């Protein structure tokens, strides 16, 4: 069985602020990490391969430095991976990102299952996976809580759908987004880290893609446009309870009484 896991490199911290005077983004270091939700997707893929055999690849899109998350996936147990990287991919919204990833998947291999994490911690949209599935023309299921088994062409799983948990079988190939608490991801192995070689990670650029129309990628291929960014509004009517802790507690207590909660 061939399994692909889509992963993303995200900022290590989410403390990005806008300077209200200059409108410039204040950068809080540039350290980055693997999107934590992707670890569950990698673990799901690795444990399936342990049971049913096969191999696991990891795929990411981003700057060349994003290679480090593929290496992390390999250290966890993936067999190899690829980074989709090109200046032509820059400024991509959900649509262009999903399209680029789908082109990358077509280029890198034939997969029975594509796993994604629930969402990323920097974009928080949770919608790239479903768009990738659309571009690949395969079924997709999100919020998957458990994988029961694989039998023939079918994968049996349970997914959370708002008020219900639904058990279903899905014909492979398919794309599955797993929920955050599906398993406990293993740690990267130091031994594997020692044996990672450069040829385990492929760098894939626009030139490698089947669709050679640059209008379909990056900013040009994006339907949405950021008109402006601004700091969030601030509340102007505010009361401050100051003084000693006792006085502060007193004031809070009377507020609770005023709100008729006692």
């Amino acid at each position, binding site marked *: 069985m061939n399994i692909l896991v889509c992963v993303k490199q995200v900022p290590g911290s989410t403390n990005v602020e*806008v300077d209200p005077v200059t409108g410039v983004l204040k950068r809080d270091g540039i350290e980055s990490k693997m999107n934590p939700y992707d670890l569950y997707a990698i673990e799901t893929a690795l444990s399936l391969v342990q049971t049913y055999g096969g191999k696991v690849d990891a795929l990411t*899109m981003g700057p060349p430095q994003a290679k480090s998350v593929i290496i992390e996936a390999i250290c966890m147990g993936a067999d190899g991976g690829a980074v989709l990287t090109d200046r032509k991919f820059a400024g991509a919204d959900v649509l262009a990102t999903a399209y680029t990833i789908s082109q990358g998947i077509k280029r890198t291999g034939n997969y029975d299952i594509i796993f994604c994490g629930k969402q990323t911690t920097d974009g928080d949209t949770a919608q790239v996976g479903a768009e990738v599935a659309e571009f690949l023309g395969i079924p997709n299921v999100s919020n998957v809580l458990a994988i029961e088994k694989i039998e023939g062409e079918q994968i049996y799983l349970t997914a959370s*759908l708002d008020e219900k948990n639904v058990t279903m079988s899905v014909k492979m190939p398919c794309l599955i987004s797993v929920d955050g608490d599906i398993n406990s991801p293993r740690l990267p192995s130091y031994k594997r880290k020692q044996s990672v070689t450069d040829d385990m990670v492929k760098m894939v650029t626009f030139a490698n893609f089947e669709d050679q129309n640059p209008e379909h990628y990056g900013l*040009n291929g994006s339907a949405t446009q950021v008109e402006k960014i601004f*700091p*969030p509004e601030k509340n102007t009517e505010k009361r401050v309870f100051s003084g000693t802790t006792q006085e502060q507690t007193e004031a809070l207590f009377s507020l609770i009484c005023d709100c008729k909660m006692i």
Partner: protein
Amino acid sequence: MGKLTINQNRITKGTADKLIEICPFGAISYNGEQLEISSACKMCKLCVKKSDGIIEFEEEIKEIVDKSLWTGICVYVDHSGNKIHRVTYELLGKAKELAKVTGHPVYALMIGNSLGEETKKLLHYGVDKVFVYDNKAFEDFKIEPYTAAFCDFIEKMKPSSILVGATNLGRQLAPRVAARCRAGLTADCTVLEMKDNTDLVQIRPAFGGNIMAQIISPNTRPQFCTVRYKVFPEPKPSDVASGEIISMELASEKLYSDITVLSSQIKPKDIDISEAEVIVAIGRGAMSEVLLNQAKELANLLGGVVACTRPLVEGNQFDAKHQIGLSGRTVNAKFIICLGISGSVQFVAGMKSSECIVAINSDKSAPIFDVAHYEIVADVNEILPQLIEKIKEARENV
């Protein structure tokens, strides 16, 4: 639409270093001769503004969509077991407001099996037309037939904007449909406005930080957005029904799915923090076991529930169901007290519509105080036990 061009002849080590410093995404690099912009670029164009002409933005004129062919603001009717999800009514209220700007009709689109009387409820929320795809193939949510019905509706009615509730179902269906239409989709909008030219202005927290992004899809139709439950107020239903229900048919070959639903179980009713009126919320600054127990005790005394921020879920102190924020639940409490919470944009987006917000934090500059109605700069460890004691005393004296 466009691209960045670099005037390489004006690049020196000094200017290169400056530009590298300006870029918030680390996308600019310099190899000693040439300045390069990598795919980390998010096209924020800060470098264009600050580089004094070294980096320029070239606008490319693209084929323009004829916006006059796309009319109507459509709300996707989210339902579970044929019971309409309340986010639908909230979105209908917002759709009506947006439609006033452009004079567009308001549509509702419902897909399901044996929907019957439930569709009529929509007629009390000011819709002009309710489009219904009713077929046994839609009994369970399966991505392919639902996408096919949705796209069939779009092809026939050409709606300008489409609002979808950000439920688990909506978060799968909206992107799938948007991708097929090659259209823009903005997730988890917190503010929606309408321009005279029918462009939908979508505002959401972005860049994973304390920033709001205003987003439009100026050259594609339809325009998709998802909105979470409880972000917009639910309008009061009118006594008189208005609008018409239109039955839609889908060719049988489009009903095919590779998914077979074997069984489904209604989830046990958990404490749902998004329905709670009183919430005691705790953050990283109140993570000790003693404080967690005190927070629970306070919640009990006030008849409320305990909720938390994302780090406490990631640290396994709490189940994700208790998390407030963009990646958790949106709450709309009458009274919320935030203990040791700094107040990231994602957290604030999930609770700022609450009626009375109290924040206790030892850090005077914590952003939570920007949204709080009552600010208490103090150590939670000292206030909480005193407060609990006082409330208990008051209870005994009643």
